């Protein structure tokens, strides 16, 4: 994304590239079904049923998603049912991505073991270790980037990027267009759910008197 400026239109039309290559063949009804499933899972007292992930895999995905959007003073990935959304997606519109998870989770776990010998998987790491692991995926070229080049980190990076993209999708997809029906993500970012809005929209256009012509010199400020 370093050249976002010139690729701006591309970015808008494609989202980011990792996302573009992954969620390719969705069908609208399956997406709704994934959302309904996530909602059902989030509301149910029964342990939710998984369609693709094993319980262990789900725990790993959930642990990473919960680091991306932690549950603190506001709801996070867990409350939005992110792992269930992804699980359902992988047996419906995102079947092509099953391999991403099947291959990616072991690579992530190998990376965890490299960094912290004796820790077998991400979900078994302490919160501080989990932070260290995710920081190993930072971009070192950015100021403040804290990437630590542990062995195996590069191999696990693409999987982390995919999982991060999927987590953002599950968290922020329009709640009325296939996303988390409780709209946890939209509440967080302050995006109101209505489909229609009226001016004034924000702080700065309140009380705006309407455009008024000013008698100005048309040549002022010209190069």
């Amino acid at each position, binding site marked *: *994304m*370093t*050249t976002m*400026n*010139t*690729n*701006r239109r*591309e970015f*808008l*039309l*494609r*989202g*980011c590239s990792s*996302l*573009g290559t992954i969620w*390719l*063949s*969705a069908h*609208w009804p399956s*997406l709704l079904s994934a959302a309904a499933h996530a909602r059902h899972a989030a509301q149910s007292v029964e342990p939710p049923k998984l369609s693709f992930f094993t319980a262990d895999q789900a725990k790993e995905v959930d642990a990473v998603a919960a*680091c*991306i*959007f932690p549950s*603190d003073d*506001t709801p*996070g990935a867990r409350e939005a049912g992110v792992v269930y959304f992804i699980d359902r997606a992988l047996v419906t519109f995102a079947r092509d991505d099953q391999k991403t998870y099947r291959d990616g989770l072991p690579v992530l776990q190998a990376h965890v073991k490299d960094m912290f010998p004796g820790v077998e998987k991400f979900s078994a790491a302490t919160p501080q270790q989990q932070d260290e692991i995710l920081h190993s995926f*930072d971009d070192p070229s*950015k*100021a403040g*980037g804290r990437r630590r080049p542990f062995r195996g980190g590069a191999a696990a990076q693409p999987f982390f990027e995919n999982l*991060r993209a999927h987590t953002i*999708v599950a*968290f*922020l*997809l*329009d709640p009325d*267009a*296939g996303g988390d029906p409780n709209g946890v993500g939209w509440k967080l*970012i*302050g*995006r109101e759910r209505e*489909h229609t*809005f*009226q*001016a*004034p*929209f*924000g*702080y*700065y*256009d309140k009380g*705006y008197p309407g*455009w008024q*012509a000013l008698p*100005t*010199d*048309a040549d002022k*400020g*010209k*190069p």
Partner: protein
Amino acid sequence: MRPDLPKYKTSDEVDFVIIGSGAAGGIIAKELSGNGFRVVVLEQGPYLTEADFTHNEIKILNEDLLTNHPKLQPNTFRKTPDDKAKLQRAVVYGRLVGGTSVHFTANFWRLHEIDFIERSKIGPVPGATLADWPITYADLEPYYTKVEWEIGVSGQAGASPFDPPRSKPYPMPPLPVKSSGVLFEKAARTLGWHPFPAPMAILSQSRPGRSACVNCGFCLGFGCEVGAKSSSLATAIRMAEKTGRCEIRPNSYVHRIELDANGRAAGAVYFDEKRDVHMQKAKAVVVCANGAETPRLLLLSSSKQFPNGLANSSGLVGKYLMLNAGGIALAVFDEPLNDYKGYAVSRIIHDFYENDPQKMGFYGGGGIDARFDLTPIGFAMGAGLPPNAPRWGKGFKDLLSHNFTRTTEIFAHTTSLPVENNSFSLDPDVKDAWGLPALRMTYKDHPDDLKFARWLTARGMEILDTAGAKQKWTFPIEEQQFAVHLLGTCRMGNDPKNSVINRDHRTHDVKNLFLCDGSSLVTSGRGQPTMTIEALAFRAADRITDLSKRGEIA
């Protein structure tokens, strides 16, 4: 209520077959069928309607519900003709009835007088083939007015001191201002510039069968669910169908224009949805397939008579591609703007539309707009976040929570010079899903285009500074490798040696073959081409009707 729609047989020789149903094709279909001609429109994409549109970002932005699909129709890209092109998505356009006008931003600036005569005014620019148009602003003015009134554009006449003359005011007032527009307007005025309400092809007042904009916030990239965006789908296509003489035939992928023994266009050969091949016969062919697919179709239609591509005696089919350059600046303010509500752009400036290259040290012109066109997923993926933003954890959450409602953008839109090497052509190796040569893009921005884009983006940063932005950032402006504005590839001109079509949009080489879309443009304008493409389409339809009535086509 849908009118009775005609179904023509492919063996019926209709008056016109039009290839493409977008900004130009829709209007030409409306005009020609309204003038009594029998018209078939062949559109490669599906016939979707408002009920099919959705706010689902994944389906729209990542699965190409409305756009050309890179798996079915791959592109290749290279910077210069000496390079080997690589498989890479290079072009996005609307692939459905209504074309790119379905998902566009709907900025509807007219060109100014200078755009048509710039070569005469400033002389040659080294490394480019800048040329005057064979028509002037005055020739096109009545048709700009037609677009505003018949298709529906909101705006405020007289608000910009730089506007060219107009024969009529806008048919409806500007859309309500956004917080970004207010900040922009105040700051630009402080700097001594002349901000004004953006002319937008979005209804501020309802029209029969179409709602005024409801400010839903899913605009650029999305199809309008209430018909407020003045796409060809919501306007011209429906008017064409009402005549009872126009058939819109979707899922029809034209890959060849056939000539008869006399070297005249006989019809269009296409794949239907099942990939069966048909030929629609017609007395004349009008290609409005966009600035990428129109030259590609001509190149695919080579024959003994035209070994280098149909209507390509000049060798210029596909050349002089112009994309428009530009730059983005983003900023965060103290209070919520809620700029996600509403359409994209509410205020613009044209103070730097025309500049003196001698004083500047380089060629270029442009306009700056205040906008917000990011939707939640794209914003969080990184498009809306400052450099070095956290990508996960509490910091990420807090940033999204604070910034989403407080962020806005400035977009500087600028010129591209016509450079002969910049082109669309047929890739010699890569094929699409139908076995046809893929579209190959060759592009390297003229150095002046990049210099001016940087210069104008710096003016955008000044506006953000003056507006009191708490944080602001921009991105490096580098050579483009991706095209949305597809301009100049079958340029209009009086001399058959250095242009593809004449001032009537007729190809110099084939009497009953006309081209009208972004490919017709001689210069790039300042970044908002669709208004001009539509005005050209109204004018082309007038010219074609006139020629036909005088018996000069058949």
